[in-house]
């Protein structure tokens, strides 16, 4: 079975008497090590799909099987635990914790997870900071970094716990084209070297060019699934 398996996933939001069907019977299999982009117009359901893939939101109907584990029936506590251990995020606005240094931001997921000893946490964070090209900047605070550097820290933070999948919502939207290219290249190389699964939602043509699979979504339905 695929690493991430969605089966007839539907998400309905209710606003007063109105019902909004953000996802409508989505079937999607994502294999380990994929570099996948979800594209579609605004309001098509990209962010909802990413939220459900990231266990930030639960589907109204349908099945989710991650790494052979049925997630549909899990409560909030178990979903938090699952996110803590297996899922990472890269956000459009980086969302680093401003009062923590580069190293502390990168170590944060491991400190929340509390599964590793201090020495191992430090070794992992050093490795990831070096991997994203920020060695020597461990003690800087986010305000002392450029946008591109902040996004690199966010990538290191996402990868440090060796997740099942990294979900990236418009990761290049706030970056200039050169920096965006560098950041996407970085994720692509990490995907190639480490086999980490990446799922993006994006409008950025550059990200789409690097993707090996493009899933198109419209009105909450998967309308295209192109593999390169």
């Amino acid at each position, binding site marked *: 079975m695929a690493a991430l398996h969605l089966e007839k996933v539907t998400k309905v939001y209710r606003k007063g008497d109105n019902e909004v069907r953000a996802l409508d019977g989505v079937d999607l299999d994502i294999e380990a090590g994929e570099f996948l982009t979800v594209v579609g117009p605004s309001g098509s359901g990209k962010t909802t799909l990413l*939220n459900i893939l*990231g266990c*930030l*939101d639960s589907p109204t109907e349908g099945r989710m099987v991650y790494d052979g584990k049925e997630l549909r029936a899990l409560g*909030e*506590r178990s979903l*938090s*635990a*699952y*996110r*803590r*251990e297996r899922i*990472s*995020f890269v*956000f459009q*606005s980086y*969302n680093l*914790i*401003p*009062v*923590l240094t580069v190293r*502390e931001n990168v170590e*944060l*997921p491991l*400190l*929340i*997870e509390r599964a590793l000893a201090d020495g191992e946490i430090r070794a992992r964070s050093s490795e990831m900071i070096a991997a994203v090209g920020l060695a020597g900047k461990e003690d800087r605070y986010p305000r002392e970094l450029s946008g591109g550097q902040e996004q690199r820290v966010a990538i290191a933070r996402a990868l440090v716990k060796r997740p099942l999948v990294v979900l990236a919502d418009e990761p290049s939207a706030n970056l200039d084209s050169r920096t965006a290219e560098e950041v996407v290249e970085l994720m692509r190389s990490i995907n190639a070297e480490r086999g980490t699964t990446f799922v993006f939602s994006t409008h950025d043509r550059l990200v789409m060019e690097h993707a090996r699979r493009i899933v198109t979504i419209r009105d909450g339905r998967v309308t295209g699934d192109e593999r390169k």
Partner: protein
Amino acid sequence: MGTLWKIAFRNTIRHKRRTIITAVVMMAGISIFIVFDSMLAGMDRMAVDNMSDYSLSSLKLRTPAYVDDISATPLDKSLPDPSGALAALAAKGITGTPRLRFVASVSNYKDVFPVIADGVDPASDPKVFKVSSALASGSWLGPETPKAVVMGAVLAQELGLKVGDSVLVSAQTVDDVTNADEYLVAGLVQTPDPTVNEGGLFMAIDEARSLLSAPAGFATEIDAALPRAGSLNAAIAQGDRTAASLKTLLPGLRLDPIGYLAQGYLSVRETKSKYSFVLILIVLFIAGVGIVNTILMSVYSRIREIGVLRAYGMTPREISRLFTLEGLALGLFGSVLGVVLGALFDLYMVVKGISIEAFSSAMGSLPLGGVIYGVWNPGTMAFGFLFGLIVALVASRIPARQAAKLEPTSALRFQ
């Protein structure tokens, strides 16, 4: 927990202005409480010491019948064997002095004032009371000034008397006959106890016995001095202990320690303590509102951050703990500053004291005057510190719960 503390602590430092404002309010509340409590304790100590020194003594020996009928100052219920009682006290190493209290009228030959007069032993009375050392003018009683009285300065002023003038003192004798005699005003006393200044009339005990036609050795009470204790509570405990230990040696007598004699004042003291507690409650409530506001601002300015922490698997309980810790860090700042500032002020009051001469008229009938010294009380400081932390903890719970309720998806979308 270490990471949560780190984030919480650094956030309080990061938002300096709101941290300082909240901490200053807490600091003010706690330091005012410490200083206020110290000053009240100092006032209590001074009041009870002054009552011991100028009017009540540390331990009073009277007959039970005399105390039962105290409002009449009954001469027929006097001590059966004053010299025996004094000897019993002396055997225990306690200094005592006899007094003869009686209702009298004092007149300048125009106006008449009723007073409670005291016949005192001019030699031993100064070993128990400090009235003789509070002379505003003239001299204390002694063999060189026969048929003399010492009066409270305010009473003398009311009667237009000064040292060297004559007064007429009249009283009911032990045989219930009115007697009067003329005395020279030898001295005027101005003590910290207003009851002495306004109504004190002292004459040698032999002169009083003569005026009242009382036999030699006649006395209504014996007053005893006890060593100065380190605190008011210790002084009260010492009085109680001594009274209990003397009970078997002096059968048939009442031994009333200062804790009993000053009970009217001491009951007011408990009310004052409650007022002081209400004061800190009000100030810390204001500080609590400040903390709620500060943490709420912190929550609203960090909604996306909460979303990230939730996305990375932090549970609502941990999010709540994060903001509670932030409130606690604020409370810690405020409480530490409050205790330090309060302790510094308190130290000044303990060492230098505060003069209340300028407010003496406002003190009314309270036996206070001169310089009030604070009382160093680590218990009050510890209470203020802990209370500040508890207020911070309780106040931060409201915004912490709000933060915990945020859904990760809406928190991440927040602009």
